[in-house]
């Protein structure tokens, strides 16, 4: 059977499973659509949060970025897990006690202002939409490879599939399909990793294999990897980082953003009790950690395998001939995500880091520039092929990558659509809207969101995980501070909160757009996105943490300069702090 057919069977089979569950659990009332009736066990919920959380960025893109950046990109690992500590302690239990459907609803009630609610809707839409762009980019890569089409066609297919899937089920469909998706994606991620770890180190647990001995060379695998890549002009994999300020801020941005992303917070409304909200965060992190502890192993082993494929006789010998390139290189060339140009006309693939520092060595070997570009987003998907694993493993990873992209995109679209239909339309434009009208508005807003995301996903402002990191910056600067102040301060009032959110959002977006292009439209950036241009060396990906500081400062400053919030609001704040009396999540 051809690889194409195997991929189709795995991808098609997993889709039938999700769609089957979605139909089986099709949403009836609006309450079901948003929070699935509020009766979900913490472990189930933790697994669903895991699937919701681990998107194309975690599954497809992250290990590729770690492989390329080594230690420097550990930020993704710490940032995307550390946020759960903040969620569990600073937000989830209190928002569960408050017991409303959506994040803007909390902000609107706590800051006793419809305007605050609308500002929260705007922040939510900007953050979620940016996030969906990253998903589209990742899903596009996956579809283009497995259906053997170019990457733009892959993106279009992804858009159609994600849309039709998201409008069908509400949260209930999504909760149970997401449990199924978690199982598919975690198997897809770990099985190839186990094979590769066994092959390279003899250790069946990839997380331990990362620190084990490389069988062929007898050296620790990270030492071996350092040797191989420094021979080719790259930095050491484990090299320390000079710009620690940026590294700290980037990690902090990802952590705060995690706790401020509405599609994750909304999950904590679906547990029966406040205590369960705390447990849910813990279970979610356990399920997430299964992938996140494996990811650094995948990254280093895939990088080593890639290099030994290109340089089969060692880095001192000649690389392989282009005509003898492995099948996976040919397959990825079709998508345009691997490109080759024979700059020195010797018919071989010189893959190295052509920096000025390495130029002398390169010239002495007759090399005339790096000849192969490998898109970082393909590394995880190509990983089983690079390691010559059997065809069914390749089919499985295709299904897993799509599960990751699909589940997160669906969760985000749900958050966007509920913000529009519930907070914007029902909350202020037309309070008398029927349940049916609300559902229709929800679906229309999903459609609009996906069209915009597809358009921008065709020319994403970075690799999938980087685009997603931008969304975290936006959430970190706008929603997280408002939520946290809403719970931990009785003094912050409506004026402070609104000004704080707007200041944080405007500051962060401006900094991002200056380097990434206004509204992410390519070519409209004012400064090239290179470290030399960054203020104090802070990258646009790391600015969210500063945006959060701006938000806190403006909100506290203005609140203290103006009147205290009314007494009933202060009592509301008091009441969310104590679990007693938490009912089911309520609409109004």
């Amino acid at each position, binding site marked *: 059977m051809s690889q194409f057919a195997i991929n189709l069977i795995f991808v098609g089979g997993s889709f039938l499973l999700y769609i089957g569950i979605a139909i089986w659990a099709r949403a009836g009332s609006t309450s079901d659509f948003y929070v699935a009736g509020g009766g979900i066990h913490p472990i189930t919920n933790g697994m669903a949060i895991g699937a919701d959380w681990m998107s194309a960025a975690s599954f497809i893109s992250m290990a590729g970025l770690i492989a390329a950046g080594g230690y420097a990109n550990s930020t993704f*690992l710490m940032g995307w897990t*550390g946020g759960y500590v903040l969620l569990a*302690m600073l937000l989830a239990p209190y928002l569960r006690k408050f017991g409303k459907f959506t994040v803007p609803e909390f902000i609107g009630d706590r800051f006793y202002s419809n305007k605050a609610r609308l500002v929260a809707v705007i922040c939510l839409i900007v953050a979620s939409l940016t996030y969906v762009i990253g998903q589209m980019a990742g899903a596009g890569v996956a579809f283009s490879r497995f259906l053997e089409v170019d990457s733009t066609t892959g993106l279009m297919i992804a858009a159609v599939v994600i849309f039709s899937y998201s409008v069908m089920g509400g949260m209930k469909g999504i909760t149970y399909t997401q449990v199924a998706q978690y199982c598919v994606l975690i198997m897809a991620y770990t099985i190839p990793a186990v094979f590769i770890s066994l092959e390279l180190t003899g250790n069946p647990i990839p997380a331990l294999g990362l*620190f084990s001995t490389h069988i062929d060379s007898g050296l*620790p695998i990270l030492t071996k990897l350092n040797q191989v890549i420094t021979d080719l002009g790259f930095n050491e994999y484990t090299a320390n980082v000079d710009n620690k300020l940026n590294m*700290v801020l980037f990690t902090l941005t990802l952590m705060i953003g995690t706790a401020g992303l509405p599609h994750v917070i909304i999950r904590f409304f679906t547990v029966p009790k406040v205590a369960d909200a705390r447990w849910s965060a813990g279970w979610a*992190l356990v399920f997430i950690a299964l992938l996140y502890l494996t990811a650094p192993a995948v990254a280093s082993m895939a990088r080593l395998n890639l290099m030994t494929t290109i340089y089969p006789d060692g880095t001192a010998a000649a690389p392989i001939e282009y005509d003898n390139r492995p099948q996976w290189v040919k397959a990825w060339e079709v998508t345009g995500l691997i490109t080759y140009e024979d700059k020195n006309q010797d018919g071989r693939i010189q893959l190295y880091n052509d920096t000025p520092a390495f130029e002398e060595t390169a010239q002495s070997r007759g090399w005339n520039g790096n000849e192969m570009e490998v898109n970082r987003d393909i590394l995880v998907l190509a990983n089983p092929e690079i390691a010559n694993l059997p065809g069914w493993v390749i089919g499985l990873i295709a299904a897993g990558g799509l599960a990751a992209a699909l589940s997160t995109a669906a969760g985000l679209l749900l958050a966007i659509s509920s913000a529009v239909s519930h907070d914007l339309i029902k909350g202020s434009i037309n309070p008398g809207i029927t349940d049916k009208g609300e559902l229709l508005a929800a679906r229309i807003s999903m459609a609009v969101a996906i069209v915009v995301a597809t358009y921008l996903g065709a020319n994403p402002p970075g690799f999938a995980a980087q685009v997603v990191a931008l969304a975290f910056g936006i959430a970190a600067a706008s929603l997280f501070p408002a939520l946290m102040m809403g719970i931990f301060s009785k003094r912050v009032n409506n004026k402070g909160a609104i000004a704080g959110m707007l200041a944080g959002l405007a500051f962060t977006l401006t900094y991002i757009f200056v380097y990434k292009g206004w509204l992410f439209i390519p070519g409209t950036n004012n400064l090239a996105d290179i470290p030399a241009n960054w203020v104090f060396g802070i990258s646009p990906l790391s600015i969210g943490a500063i945006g959060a500081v701006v938000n806190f400062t403006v909100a506290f400053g203005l609140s203290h300069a103006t009147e205290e919030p009314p007494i009933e609001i202060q009592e509301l704040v008091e009441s969310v702090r104590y679990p007693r009396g938490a009912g089911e999540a309520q609409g109004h």
Partner: protein
Amino acid sequence: MSGHSENAEQYWKANLRLIYGSLIIWALVSYGFGILLRPMLSGIAVGGTDLGFWFAQQGSILTFIVLIFFYAWRMNKLDEKFGVGEE
């Protein structure tokens, strides 16, 4: 709501103390051991690299899990002790 009672206030203070303590550890393992203090830990070798690298790629994640479960367990005890839990 018994919000302003002394009991409730003590419960909230105990919660805040627990949060401060947990967040100190949270910051220490990630920003500390994983990033800023890595050069200090470079003498401690772990499988071809150093302890700071391990904390950055795995150790901090494992610590986060322990922290959340510890917090949930302690808070549920506090809910009971101060009588502010559900049911």
